[in-house]
């Protein structure tokens, strides 16, 4: 039985979170794991879209979300947040990007700040599941093809009209057949 830590408040993340972290096999142990994550996180903030192994991308996602949410929550005048950003972002010019570009961009988002997609494996070269991680609102073309509004295609409009006409015809037939039927008297008691 554990007790929730209450020393600091955190914002709720809007992504699914694994109950346990993944180890990310590393000879340096947990410290090396964070080093690896730091590298990918910096790259994510720099390029806004990366192709990675699924495990690494999934792990990085949580850290990226947390860092952005902290930046939104406390701003750049908060000492602890700045220290955290300084640890996680290796290229120091990107700290400015975090507080001046990303935090304002995501401040009124109601969804997660990042997206994670499954990518195809290049069998037999790559055996691990691949994925694409990106920051939302990036300048690149979307990964999933946008759904077109197919309702306004000319054949769909014509088909819709044809359906309406057919239905109207049917209703007319039904009303005519009802009129021809003899009336059945219903007596109330």
């Amino acid at each position: 039985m554990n007790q929730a830590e209450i020393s600091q408040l955190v914002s709720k993340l809007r992504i699914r979170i694994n109950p346990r972290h993944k180890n990310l096999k590393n000879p340096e142990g947990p410290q090396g794991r964070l080093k690896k994550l730091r590298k990918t996180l910096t790259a994510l903030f720099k390029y806004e879209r990366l192709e990675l192994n699924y495990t690494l991308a999934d792990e990085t996602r949580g850290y990226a979300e947390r860092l952005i949410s902290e930046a939104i929550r406390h701003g750049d005048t908060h000492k602890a947040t700045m220290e955290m950003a300084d640890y996680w972002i290796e290229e120091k010019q990107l700290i400015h990007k975090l507080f001046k570009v990303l935090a304002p961009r995501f401040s009124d988002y109601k969804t997660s700040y990042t997206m994670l997609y499954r990518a195809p494996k290049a069998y037999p070269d790559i055996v691990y599941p691949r994925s694409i991680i990106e920051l939302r609102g990036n300048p690149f073309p979307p990964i999933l093809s946008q759904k077109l509004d197919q309702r306004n295609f000319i054949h769909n409009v014509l088909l819709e009209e044809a359906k309406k006409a057919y239905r109207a015809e049917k209703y007319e037939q039904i009303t005519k057949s009802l009129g021809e039927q003899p009336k059945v008297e219903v007596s109330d008691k």
Partner: protein
Amino acid sequence: MLLRNLKLYKVKSGLAPVVQICRLSSSIPLEDFPVGTVSEKQVKPERKSIVPSNCRYVYPEFLPDPKMQWRNPLREKLERMDMIQRRKHIDIPEFYVGTIMAVTSSNQHAPNKATRFVGICIQRLGCGLRANFTLRNVIKHIGTEMKYQLYDPTIQKIEVLRLEKRLDDELLYLRDAPNEYSTFDENMEAEYLPEGSPIPVNTTMVKLKPRPWRARWERKNMKGLADLELPERFYKRAEELATPWEKYDLMKQYRRTIPEEEQKEIFAEVYSELHEVNVMRKKQKRKKVFIKPFKN
């Protein structure tokens, strides 16, 4: 006007009048009834929450276990209801690790069927109905500890004698300290803090007895420990084993806490009832005040 009254009626009582209203409304032209008012009435202005921000310190056991595999919203809610029910029966005061308390619990072997134990709270663990705390005192030169479940029905009374905090969240090192650090008078009288004043922090530095200890305290980064006076190699080893990167592990932090939104939800649900209970207790206390007459 008539329609408006009817609408109100519809809200108050169940299904049957709805039919009536439908019938009546067909006879009254709809233009009489301004459509805008309905939506204006339904949209409530956002109320400021009255829940104080220190709730998580005062009632930490109302926050669920952050371990995701063990979460169960329904169980947590039921537990919270039970906890409030228990709090209606006995006064569970605000206390912290380092507070000196007295607990009276039922004991069938005691002559008056109850035992009172006075001691310093050295640990507070668990959440929900399983929340517990440990009191420590030295009785007849023997260090004694009692672990109580906070919501145990056999507990008759919990008193706070001196409300204060210490520098650490756990005072288990008192077990390795000389007896004077955890000796408290059993007939100690309660000290009152003025309402609304901040909780005082007791900054006593504890000087431990020489080794062997129950834990390697040089590795635990305790703030309330005086110089341990160990040979250099102990500190070297402690430095080797330290994990200074852990404070940067954002997800580890996240998995150990309950996010603010969830906390707000929980305390919004619980606070009004807790506040009611507190107010009731205060009223009772005011009634019961009785000053013992002195002989001159």
